[in-house]
């Protein structure tokens, strides 16, 4: 990416600015593409769940309903923005922004294919965890500032849920960190592709399981969508939001799903790479230009997204205290066992 753009841009901007411009271009590409995917993620969700329920999903707007997300977006953006009288206004305004921005910021460290990440930082994984924990602020603030009791309960639930599952998720990723010996996502993927089994999901099956469950809880999706359980709390923390602000929450949530899927892909399913044994089998694959691998990456991400939809179509919702029990009494111990296990095997040189 850099090598491609630098010679083109350098004459115009000079080297110093070129770097900034390249970064800006990357940011634009990433955000643009992601938002498009987010929009269509909602479309696919409705389609998939619809088909799973003998329905058709959206199909009236555009060909097969393909313009539905855009219609929805337009509708949301032009809707009246209602602010409850009891709301704490500054925070009410700020909450969706925090939520959305924290989700978008996470995108900056995701490598989509080899060498393409807005910022390829050494502590990428930590950065992702940090950002995903910030989303909780948006939710809690939204819940509190709405001045509605349902929102408030949703906010409280979300705060404790995100804190609890943050731990499980962080611990589940420790196994991957141990195996790859790095926190840099690109390094993790590379270490993974050179590992005999390819995907870390196989040796890290326990960690993968914990991550998989925590993933649902972190993004407030069924069966852990307690903060917005519509049958209990109407819509949870965003009950009082409408229009543009609601859209921010909506987009933030789906971006969060996309990011969690991307983390899962990068840490457990080998990111944009294929396992080594396949590459050895089909050597011509390594001749392909790096950008082609983004297809593999997106394929895996969409596999995760499909799992999100699939689970949502199948499972009922947990209760709040059961959710906490699972987080603290099942997932965290499992993740710890996984760490001990991985660490032991690492010491013994088997990993």
């Amino acid at each position, binding site marked *: 990416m850099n090598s491609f753009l630098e010679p083109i841009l350098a004459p115009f901007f000079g080297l110093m600015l070129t770097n900034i411009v390249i970064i800006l271009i990357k940011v634009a590409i990433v955000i643009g593409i992601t938002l498009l995917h987010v929009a269509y993620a909602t479309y696919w969700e409705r389609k*998939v769940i*619809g*088909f*799973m*329920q*003998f*329905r*058709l999903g959206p*199909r009236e707007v555009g060909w097969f309903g393909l313009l539905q997300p855009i219609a929805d977006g337009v509708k949301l953006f032009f809707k009246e923005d209602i602010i409850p009288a009891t709301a704490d206004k500054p925070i009410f305004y700020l909450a969706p922004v925090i939520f959305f921005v924290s989700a978008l910021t996470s995108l900056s460290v995701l490598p989509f294919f080899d060498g393409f990440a807005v910022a390829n930082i050494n502590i990428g994984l930590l950065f992702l965890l940090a950002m995903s924990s910030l989303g909780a602020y948006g939710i809690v603030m939204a819940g509190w500032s709405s001045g509605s009791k349902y929102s408030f309960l949703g906010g409280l639930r979300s705060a404790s849920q995100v804190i609890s599952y943050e731990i499980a998720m962080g611990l589940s990723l420790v196994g991957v960190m141990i195996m790859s010996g790095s926190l840099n996502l690109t390094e993790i993927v590379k270490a993974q592709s050179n590992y005999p089994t390819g995907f870390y999901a196989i040796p890290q099956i326990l960690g993968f399981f914990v991550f998989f469950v925590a993933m649902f809880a972190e993004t407030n999706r069924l069966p852990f969508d307690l903060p917005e359980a519509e049958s209990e709390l109407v819509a949870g923390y965003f009950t009082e939001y409408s229009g543009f602000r609601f859209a921010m929450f909506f987009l933030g949530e789906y971006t969060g799903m996309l990011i969690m899927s991307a983390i899962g892909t990068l840490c457990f399913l080998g990111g944009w790479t294929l396992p080594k044994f396949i590459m050895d089998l089909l050597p011509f694959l390594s001749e392909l230009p790096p950008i082609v691998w983004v297809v593999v990456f997106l394929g895996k991400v969409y596999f995760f997204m499909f799992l999100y939809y*699939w*689970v949502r*179509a*199948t*499972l009922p919702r947990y209760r709040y205290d059961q959710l906490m029990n699972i987080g603290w009494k099942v997932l965290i111990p499992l993740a710890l066992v996984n760490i001990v296990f991985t660490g032991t095997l690492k010491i013994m040189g088997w990993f």
Partner: protein
Amino acid sequence: MKNSLVKIMFFTEILKGMALTFRTLFKPAVTRRYPLVKVPAQPGYRGLHALAKDNTGRMKCVGCGLCGAYCPSQCIHIYTTEGEDHNKVVDRYEIDVLRCIFCGFCVEACPFGAITLSEHYEYSSYSKNAFYMNKEKLLANWDKYFEGEKGNQYFKKFWRPLTEDFKGNPEQAMFSKITRKEKS
């Protein structure tokens, strides 16, 4: 016991559910795309009212008022005057469709088979007046929805009870006539 252990460890019951939803993914949807594709109402559907005409095209109603008396929601209003040859003349026959509960009792009450409920079910409008049916509109409905033999068939089938209901009908639906065999 062992079974439950396996169940807990490997999420068999959840996986079964997931398998079911996944299978459904490939089954045809049952969605009826309503405004585009309309499902015809079954014969005898209790929809919009109509006032029957006889073969000569005259209104069957004689203004006896039984329908209005029987109507549970009391939405039928009939105004009659004495005609030339001391006949009753139905001046106004009005139905407040917004009050009507479409129970079909008026059909049952009418000794002459003058009032019917058509198969038409899409009645929406921007004004209340559209739902205040007067005699003319009701008669027009008859022409619209019961043209030809349809009207006669309607009475034959849905103007009940008939004598056969009290005596037993030789053409009754019976199970033994069912050809379909039970799935083994």
